[in-house]
C-alpha cells in the first residue's frame, strides 16, 4: 500500500484519508495495550491456580500497566493532535470528485487536522487486496483506551473482595482479562474485520461471565439469552461489513474490496459510495447496535444479564461492552452520516430508536425490585441517549456522555454490589432498607452517582446530557445538525426521560438506604477494596463533566473549553463535517428544573407518604398500600405492562421462537419417526421377510432338496448296485463268463 501511496502522491493527489503512518512510538504501538490483558488471560489460564492469589494479581498488574500505558498514549495523542506535521495518507479513487477541498473546509472550521495514527501488518493478500491487521489511534480510540483500562482496573480490584472464595475465582479473572483485551482491541481496530472479530470476542466473554455461576439454571439461561440476542444483531454486523467491503471496492481502482475504516469513511464522506448501499449498510449495522447496545427490540438480554456477578455487570454491561455499539457508530460515522442523512431534514432510524429506547428503559426502571435491574434499565435508557445523540448529529455529545456515563454507572453498579454483598440479596423491597446508617461510604457514593446520572449540575451527567439535548436542536433553537427543527421529538423524549431518570433513582435510593431494614442479619460496610474504587469513581463522576465545558462558559479561559471535544472529535477526511449546536443556558436551566421536579415528585411519594404510611403501619413499607394501581384499573394495566416488560420476552420466546421451532420440531419429529424410522423399520422387516423367504423357499426346499436328492440318489444307486453283490459264487461266475464272452466277441469282431 505504501508503494501505491507514493505513486498516487506523485501522479495525482488522490483522496486524503485523514490518517498518517507517522506518529510517536506510543501511538504507533498502541496494540501493546490490548496485548497486555491478553497475556494476562493466557497467564492466568495456565498459572493462575498456582499463584498465591489465584491469578488476580497477574490480572491487576497487567491491566494496571495497560492503564498507565493508556494514560501515556493519551498524553502522546494530546501532543500529536495539535503538533503533528507528518505525511497524510492518500488513496487513489476510481472517480475523484471532491479531493482536497473537503479536508480544507473542515480544517478551516476547526484548525489543525487530527490525523489518526495508522499502523498495520499485512495478514494475507488475495487478488491485490491486502487484508491487514492493525491499529488506528485517534481521539475516540484514546478516550476509550483510558476509560476501559481504568474501569477494568477498578473492577479487578473490587472483584478480589467481591468474588473472594468463589468456586471459579481464577477462571473469573482470566475472563475479565480476556474481556479487557477484546474490548481494547475493538477500540483500536483499524478495519471492520478486526472490529467484527473483537465484537464477537466481547460477546463470548460476556456469555462466559454472565454464566459464571452456570450451575443455577437461570444464570445459564441468561447467558444464552445474551449471546443469542447478540447473535441476531451480529448478523446485521456481518452483512453490513460485507456490503461496505464491496461498496468500497467498487470505488477503489484495482481492488475488489477493503475493510479499512479510514478508507470506508473517507470515501463515504467524499460521496464516492452509493447512497443506497450506505443506507442498507447503515440499517444492518444498526441491527448490531440494537443488540449490543441494548436498544429497543433487542434490549431484552440486558436486564437478564444481571444474573452475572456485579463486577461483570459494572464493567461489561454498564461501562464498556454495551457501549461498543455506540463506539462502532462513532467510528463509522462517515457511513452513518451519509447513509441515514443525519445532516438532513428528517428523523432518521438511529435517532428514533435511540429516543424510544431512552423512554422505555426509564419506564421499566420504575417497577423493578432488583436493584441491579433498575440500573440495567437505566443503562438501556442512557445508551438510548447516546444513540439518539449520534442520530441527531451530536457526535461529541454522545461520546462525552459515554465517557461520563462509564464513571457514574460503574460507580452505581459497584455500589449496588457493595450493598447486596452486605445483605446477600439484590432484592430491594424484601431485603434492603435503611442501609445508610450501616454503610455510609456506599450510601454516599451511590447518591453521588445518582445525582450524576440524573443530571444535576455541577456533576458530570449534567454537562453531557445537556450537550445531547442541545444537540437535538429542537425547535431550531440551538443550531446544530438538527437546526431545522427535525429532531424536536427527540428533545421532548430526552427531557421527559431526564425527569423519569431522576424519579426512579430517587425511588431506588429510598428503597435501599432509607426506611427500616427489612432483611436478615446485620449488614456492615464493605472492605477497602470495594470502597476505594467506589470513591474513585464517585470522584470522577463529579469532575469528569468539566472536561467538556461548553464554548463561552464564563470564568474559564478558552483553552479550558471543550477540551474533550477538541481532542476526541476527529478533524479528518474520514469524519464527516457536522455542525455543532450553540450551547444554551435556557435549556440548561429548563432541564435542571425538569430533573428537580422529577426528584421532587418521587421524593414526595416516598420520603413523605410512604414514610408516613410506614410509621402508621409500624413496619417498613416499600410502597403505598392504597396507591394508584389499586385505585385505577388503567394504572394497574400500565403497571402490569411494565412488569411484563411490554410482553417483548413473551413475543420473542413464545411467539417468534416458539412459533418457528414448534412446527419445525414437530415436522422434524414426524420425519424422524415416520419417514426415517419408517424406512428403517421397513428395511428391517423386509430384510427379515426376505431372509425368511430365502430360508423357507430357497434354503429348505431348493438347496436342501438338491443336497437331499443327491444323497438319496447316491444311496439308491448304491442300493441298486449292491444287489449285484449277492454273495453267491455262481452269480459272480455268471457275470464273469458273460463279460468274458462279450469281450471275446468284441475282440473277434474288431481284431
Amino acid at each position: 500500500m505504501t508503494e501505491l501511496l507514493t505513486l498516487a502522491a506523485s501522479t495525482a493527489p488522490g483522496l486524503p484519508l485523514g490518517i498518517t503512518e507517522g506518529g510517536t512510538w506510543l501511538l504507533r504501538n498502541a496494540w501493546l495495550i490490548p496485548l497486555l490483558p491478553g497475556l494476562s488471560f493466557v497467564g492466568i489460564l495456565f498459572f493462575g491456580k498456582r499463584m498465591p492469589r489465584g491469578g488476580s494479581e497477574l490480572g491487576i498488574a497487567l491491566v494496571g500497566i495497560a492503564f498507565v500505558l493508556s494514560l501515556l498514549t493519551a498524553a502522546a495523542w494530546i501532543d500529536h493532535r495539535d503538533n503533528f506535521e507528518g505525511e497524510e495518507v492518500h488513496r487513489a479513487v476510481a472517480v475523484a470528485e471532491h479531493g482536497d477541498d473537503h479536508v480544507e473546509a473542515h480544517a478551516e472550521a476547526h484548525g489543525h487536522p487530527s490525523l489518526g495514527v495508522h499502523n498495520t501488518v499485512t495478514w494475507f493478500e488475495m487478488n491485490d487486496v491486502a487484508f491487514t491487521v492493525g491499529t488506528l489511534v485517534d481521539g475516540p480510540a484514546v478516550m476509550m483506551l483510558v476509560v476501559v483500562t481504568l474501569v477494568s482496573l477498578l473492577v479487578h480490584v473490587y472483584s478480589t473482595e467481591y468474588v473472594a472464595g468463589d468456586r471459579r475465582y481464577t477462571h473469573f479473572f482470566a475472563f475479565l482479562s480476556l474481556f479487557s483485551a477484546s474490548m481494547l482491541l475493538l477500540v483500536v481496530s483499524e478495519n471492520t474485520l478486526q472490529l467484527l472479530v473483537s465484537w464477537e470476542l466481547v460477546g463470548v466473554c460476556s456469555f462466559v461471565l454472565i454464566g459464571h455461576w452456570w450451575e443455577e439454571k437461570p444464570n445459564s439461561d441468561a447467558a444464552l439469552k445474551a449471546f443469542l440476542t447478540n447473535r441476531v444483531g451480529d448478523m446485521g454486523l456481518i452483512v453490513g461489513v460485507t456490503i461496505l467491503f464491496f461498496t468500497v471496492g467498487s470505488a477503489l481502482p484495482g481492488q475488489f474490496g477493503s475493510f479499512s475504516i479510514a478508507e470506508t469513511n473517507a470515501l463515504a464522506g467524499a460521496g464516492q459510495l452509493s447512497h443506497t448501499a450506505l443506507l442498507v449498510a447503515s440499517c444492518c449495522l444498526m441491527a448490531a447496535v440494537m443488540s449490543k447496545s441494548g436498544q429497543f427490540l433487542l434490549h431484552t438480554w440486558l436486564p437478564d444479564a444481571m444474573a452475572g456477578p456485579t463486577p461483570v455487570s459494572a464493567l461489561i454491561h454498564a461501562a464498556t461492552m454495551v457501549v461498543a455499539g455506540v463506539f462502532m457508530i462513532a467510528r463509522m460515522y462517515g457511513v452513518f452520516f451519509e447513509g441515514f442523512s443525519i445532516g438532513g431534514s428528517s428523523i432518521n432510524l438511529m435517532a428514533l430508536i435511540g429516543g424510544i429506547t431512552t423512554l422505555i428503559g426509564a419506564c421499566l426502571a420504575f417497577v423493578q425490585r432488583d436493584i441491579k435491574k433498575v440500573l440495567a434499565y437505566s443503562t438501556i435508557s442512557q445508551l438510548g441517549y447516546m444513540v439518539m445523540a449520534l442520530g441527531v448529529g451530536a457526535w461529541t455529545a454522545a461520546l462525552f456522555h459515554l465517557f461520563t456515563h462509564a464513571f457514574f454507572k460503574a460507580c452505581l453498579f459497584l455500589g449496588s454490589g457493595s450493598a447486596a454483598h452486605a445483605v446477600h440479596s439484590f432484592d430491594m423491597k424484601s431485603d434492603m432498607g435503611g442501609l445508610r446508617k450501616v454503610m455510609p461510604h456506599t450510601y454516599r457514593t451511590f447518591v453521588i452517582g445518582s445525582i450524576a446520572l440524573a443530571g444535576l449540575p455541577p456533576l458530570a451527567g449534567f454537562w453531557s446530557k445537556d450537550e445531547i439535548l442541545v444537540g437535538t436542536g429542537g425547535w431550531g433553537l440551538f443550531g446544530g445538525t438538527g437546526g431545522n427543527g427535525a429532531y424536536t421529538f427527540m428533545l421532548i423524549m430526552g427531557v421527559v426521560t431526564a425527569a423519569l431518570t431522576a424519579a426512579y433513582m430517587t425511588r431506588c435510593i429510598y428503597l435501599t438506604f432509607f426506611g427500616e431494614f427489612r432483611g436478615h442479619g446485620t449488614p456492615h460496610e464493605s472492605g477497602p477494596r470495594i470502597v476505594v474504587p467506589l470513591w474513585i469513581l464517585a470522584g470522577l463522576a463529579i469532575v469528569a463533566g468539566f472536561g467538556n465545558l461548553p464554548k463561552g462558559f464564563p470564568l474559564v479561559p478558552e483553552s479550558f473549553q471543550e477540551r474533550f471535544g477538541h481532542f476526541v472529535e476527529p478533524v479528518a477526511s474520514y469524519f464527516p463535517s457536522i455542525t455543532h449546536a450553540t450551547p444554551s443556558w435556557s435549556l440548561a436551566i429548563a432541564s435542571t428544573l425538569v430533573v428537580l421536579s422529577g426528584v421532587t415528585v418521587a421524593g414526595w411519594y416516598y420520603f413523605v407518604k410512604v414514610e408516613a404510611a410506614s410509621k402508621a403501619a409500624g413496619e417498613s413499607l416499600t410502597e403505598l398500600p392504597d396507591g394508584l394501581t389499586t385505585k385505577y384499573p388503567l394504572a394497574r394495566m400500565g403497571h402490569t405492562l411494565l412488569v411484563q416488560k411490554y410482553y417483548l420476552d413473551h413475543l420473542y420466546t413464545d411467539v417468534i421462537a416458539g412459533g418457528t421451532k414448534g412446527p419445525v420440531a414437530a415436522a422434524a419429529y414426524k420425519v424422524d419417526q415416520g419417514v426415517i424410522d419408517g424406512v428403517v423399520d421397513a428395511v428391517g422387516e423386509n430384510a427379515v421377510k426376505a431372509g425368511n423367504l430365502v430360508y423357507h423357499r430357497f434354503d429348505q426346499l431348493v438347496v436342501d432338496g438338491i443336497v437331499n436328492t443327491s444323497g438319496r440318489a447316491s444311496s439308491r444307486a448304491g442300493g441298486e448296485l449292491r444287489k449285484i453283490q449277492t454273495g453267491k459264487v455262481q452269480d459272480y461266475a455268471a457275470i464273469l463268463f458273460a463279460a468274458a464272452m462279450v469281450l471275446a466277441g468284441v475282440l473277434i469282431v474288431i481284431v
Partner: protein
Amino acid sequence: MNVPAALEGFDSLTSGDTVVAQNIAFGILSVVMVVAALRMVTTRNVVHAALYLVIVLAGAAGIFILLGAEFVGVTQVLVYIGAIVVLFLFGIMLTRGALGEDEEANTEKRRMAALVGVLVLVVTGGAVLDSFGDAAVNRSAPSLTSEIGDTIFSQYIVPFEAVSVLLLAALIGAIVVARQD
C-alpha cells in the same frame, strides 16, 4: 500179436471207408456225449449226474482215440473215469445227507445261466466257424507214445515237474483242508 499190422490197418486213415467210418463214429460219440452232458446238468439225482459224467468222459476218450491221440485217450479213462469220478462219488456219498436227491435250481438262475451258456456257445461257435473254415483232420498215423514221452521229458520238463509239485501240493492241501481235528 501183430501190433504194427493192427496199427497199420488202423493207420490208413486216408481211405474213404475209414473216413466214413470215422465220421459215423464221431457222430455217434458226439450225440451221446452231448445228450449225456445235457442230462448231467439237468438231472436232479446227483449220482445220476456222476454217471452221466462218466458217459461224457468215456465219449471224450473215444474222441481222443478217433483223433489218433491214443495215449491221451487211455490216460483220460484211467485218470478221469477211474480216479476223478470215483472221487466225485466219494464226495457225493460223504455229502449226501445234506441234499438228498432233491435238487431244485430256481428258474431265474437257470434262465440266466442258459442265457450265458447260449452266449458262450454263440461267441465261441461263431469264432470257430469263422476261423477255421474247411480245415480237415487228416492224420497219417496216430501219435506215438514214445514221442509224447520224449516231448514231455525234453521240451516240457519244467511244466512236468511243476505239475508234479502241484499234485503234491494238492494232495497235501486236500488232506490238510479236509482233516478232522
